């Protein structure tokens, strides 16, 4: 048996998926969280049931890449039944999709999810009548509390095609190949269905979440709220996690206990110097890779993922598209582009996948470029905020301002060069919701697990590469080659070259290298600013590069990486000279 979960965006398909399979896929409160199909096995009834989670669609007429993904699954594979997860508050849209799904001649089960929110708004559905008219089984659920899931499972086991009076009526009035005309017909028929089966007892008033929601999207209140959110992130991730958190982990836990313990153990038990160096030397797997990964990056990404999870689940992120649409217009995009960009602050690799929610090829390409160039990922951002917080708040604003400037200039230029067009701005805004502590915890945990699985091996690989090149004296040779760039152009110490080399593997690893330099007093203010700008703009990490290849093609990925590499160094050089020039004239910008 194979079941596909289908539904409008942001109705809780992934929550249902998690509830049925016991697996975890990311759940958030914004449309477009799921861009890739997840598969899981559910065990209930007699056998195993394959469950497929799909990206949200409003119709089976695909207009964007993620809608295409869903359509392909339904039309090509051997799905035995469809569970349509629907927002019980939005019956019209839900039923319009139901009618479309029924055309596939696969049994459909209609899951009216978030039925608690619908009840709060006084929406009452005559389930029995609706089920008869549609010829479809209907189950009411509240997925986050697992209400109704047991009934849903029972219903899935019994799924079969039933005669549908509504479908017969639609078919008897003739068919049309024109998508708009058939959509129109469906909507008419949905209107009638709703008149017969849905009652709104008292029209919804303004709830607290609606008030708060509207404050976040009005410029007068929305911009200050955004600043507050950013300031809070700076304090929580930059000051608290990257400052106190890292201090404790690096200086106390690793500095006083973990590393001394391993170093002593190695000294005593391992007689061969080379192996000892490999484990606990300057470029040791334990003393460098593991220390960087757990003592520096780990506290930072934990804080960031927690903070980000709350933002995601509150429904705040898509609201930013309302505020930013007009700004994105300047660079050939629309407000929808803010979603992948902000997700890029979490992880550029995942964000590059999320560009699928954008409608045109040009938009996807532009956002991919900006993600590669100017958006630091969570770990990197945390390290950067940590370093900047040691300078001043002004330094943070300067860094932020310069990046915005780069983004606008490069975005504007690229939008003129890249052929194609922008799509109009139409964005659904989810309601503001109180984040569920449990979901935040589960999500943060899943992300940390993913981070450790992906980052730690690369950290070790990078350290091994440094270790080998150090022993073979290649490191010196590479540093000699790059030192004109690093030392003369950027005005940084030779040692910083290492940070950039490991930055090829992961940018946060590179940033961590710089962090160590700055904490040990090897960088002055201008050097900190320049090195941070360069490592931010620097090439994507390996994972992001591969996803870019997969999504945009090898040629485009190479072009982007080449451009970004050259741009990062030239721009960093420019800033270096400018800051030094100003400093020489007694103007301290930082």
């Amino acid at each position, binding site marked *: 048996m194979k079941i596909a979960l289908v539904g409008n965006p942001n109705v809780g398909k992934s929550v249902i998926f998690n509830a049925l399979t016991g697996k975890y896929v990311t759940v958030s409160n914004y449309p477009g969280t799921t861009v890739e199909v997840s598969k899981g096995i559910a065990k209930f009834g007699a056998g195993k049931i394959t469950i497929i989670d799909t990206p949200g669609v409003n119709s089976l007429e695909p207009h964007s890449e993620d809608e295409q993904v869903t359509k392909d699954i339904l039309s090509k594979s051997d799905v035995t039944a469809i569970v349509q997860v629907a927002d019980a508050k*939005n*019956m019209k*849209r839900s039923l319009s999709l139901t009618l479309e799904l029924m055309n596939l001649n696969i049994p459909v089960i209609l899951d009216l999810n978030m039925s608690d929110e619908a009840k709060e708004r006084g929406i009452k559905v005559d389930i029995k009548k609706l089920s008869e008219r549609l010829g479809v089984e209907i189950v009411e659920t509240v997925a986050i509390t697992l209400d109704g899931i047991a009934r849903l499972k029972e219903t899935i086991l019994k799924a079969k095609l039933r005669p549908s009076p509504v479908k017969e009526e639609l078919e008897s009035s003739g068919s049309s190949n024109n998508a708009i005309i058939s959509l129109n017909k469906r909507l008419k028929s949905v209107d009638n269905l709703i008149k017969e089966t849905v009652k709104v007892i008292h029209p919804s008033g303004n709830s607290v979440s609606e008030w708060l929601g509207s404050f976040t*999207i*009005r410029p007068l209140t929305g911009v200050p709220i955004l600043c507050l959110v950013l300031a809070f992130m700076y304090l929580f991730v930059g000051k608290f996690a990257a400052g106190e958190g890292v201090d404790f982990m690096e200086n106390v836990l690793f500095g006083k206990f973990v590393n001394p313990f391993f170093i002593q153990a190695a000294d005593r038990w391992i007689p061969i110097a080379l192996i000892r160096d490999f484990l606990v030397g300057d470029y040791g797997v334990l003393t460098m890779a593991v220390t960087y990964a757990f003592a520096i990056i780990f506290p930072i990404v934990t804080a960031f993922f927690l903070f980000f999870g709350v933002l995601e689940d509150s429904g705040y992120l898509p609201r930013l598209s309302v505020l930013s649409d007009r700004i994105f217009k300047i660079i050939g995009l629309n407000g929808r582009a803010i979603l992948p960009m902000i997700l890029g602050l979490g992880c550029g690799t995942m964000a590059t996948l999320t560009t699928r929610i954008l409608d045109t090829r040009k938009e996807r390409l532009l956002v991919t470029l900006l993600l590669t160039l100017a958006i630091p990922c969570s770990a990197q951002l945390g390290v950067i905020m940590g370093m900047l917080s040691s300078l001043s708040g002004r330094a943070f604003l300067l860094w932020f301002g310069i990046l915005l400037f780069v983004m606008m200039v490069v975005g504007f230029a690229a939008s003129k060069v890249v052929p194609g067009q922008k799509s109009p701005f*139409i964005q*659904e805004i989810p309601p503001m919701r109180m984040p569920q502590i449990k979901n935040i915890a589960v999500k943060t945990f899943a992300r940390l697990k993913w981070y450790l699985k992906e980052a730690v091996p690369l950290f070790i690989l990078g350290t091994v590469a440094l270790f080998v090149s150090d022993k073979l004296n290649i490191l010196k040779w590479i540093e000699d080659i790059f030192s004109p760039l690093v030392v003369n152009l950027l005005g940084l110490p030779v040692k910083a070259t290492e940070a950039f080399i490991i930055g090829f593997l992961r940018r946060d690893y590179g940033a961590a290298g710089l962090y160590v330099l700055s904490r040990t007093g090897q960088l002055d203010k201008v050097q900190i600013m320049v090195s941070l700008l360069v490592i931010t703009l620097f090439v994507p990490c390996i994972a992001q590069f591969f996803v870019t290849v997969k999504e945009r093609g090898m040629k485009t990925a190479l072009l982007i990486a080449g451009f970004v590499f050259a741009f990062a160094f030239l721009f960093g050089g420019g800033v270096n000279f400018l800051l030094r020039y100003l400093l020489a004239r007694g103007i301290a910008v930082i």
Partner: protein
Amino acid sequence: MERIHKIEESLSIIWEEREKGVSDKEAVGKSILGKVDENMLEPLARDGYIIFEGHAIKLTPQGESRAKDITRRQRLAERLLIDVLELPRKEMDSFACEFEHIISKEVEASICTLLGHPKECPHGLPIPSGDCCLKAKASLASIVVPLSNLSSGETGKIVYLLTRNHPQLHKLMSLGITPGVTIAVHQTFPSFVIKVEETQVALEEEIAKEIYVKKLHAA
């Protein structure tokens, strides 16, 4: 059909063919014959409405202004029947044909004002603008207006969507933004935010200009 009706009908056909880029005498003649049951080209030429240039038909200034008038009235009538009287499409066509001949200049202007000086007929063809449109522009408060004219807090019932871009229209409709639906405007700047059913949707102004609504008084 009375003679004057035949002349007006023929002129509107010539106008419509010209919009499609057709001015060939034979082709246009055929269209007219199909609708009016008589080849009106010779009589039209005799009355000074058109002249022949080789195989092509050209409207004289007199013909031009008459053709424009009748086309305008015809398309305004269509809008009126669909938007305000909410007549089904099928019935519209037969009604509109009769309607256009009995509308006086004054009535035409008031219908146009009522409809908010629409730019296109329900088929998507341009409605030639009249004096009232130029005078009024957007300054007159009319009943059917683009969504972009509404201010926050107001509600309206969608009358029609102007957009002719197919995917965009489909996207709006599948979000529940369809004719007949009541929407509330939550805010207008920097983007339009509206509420349809329980869904909040943000739109750019360009799209809001293409959604025409009947303004409703606050409930």
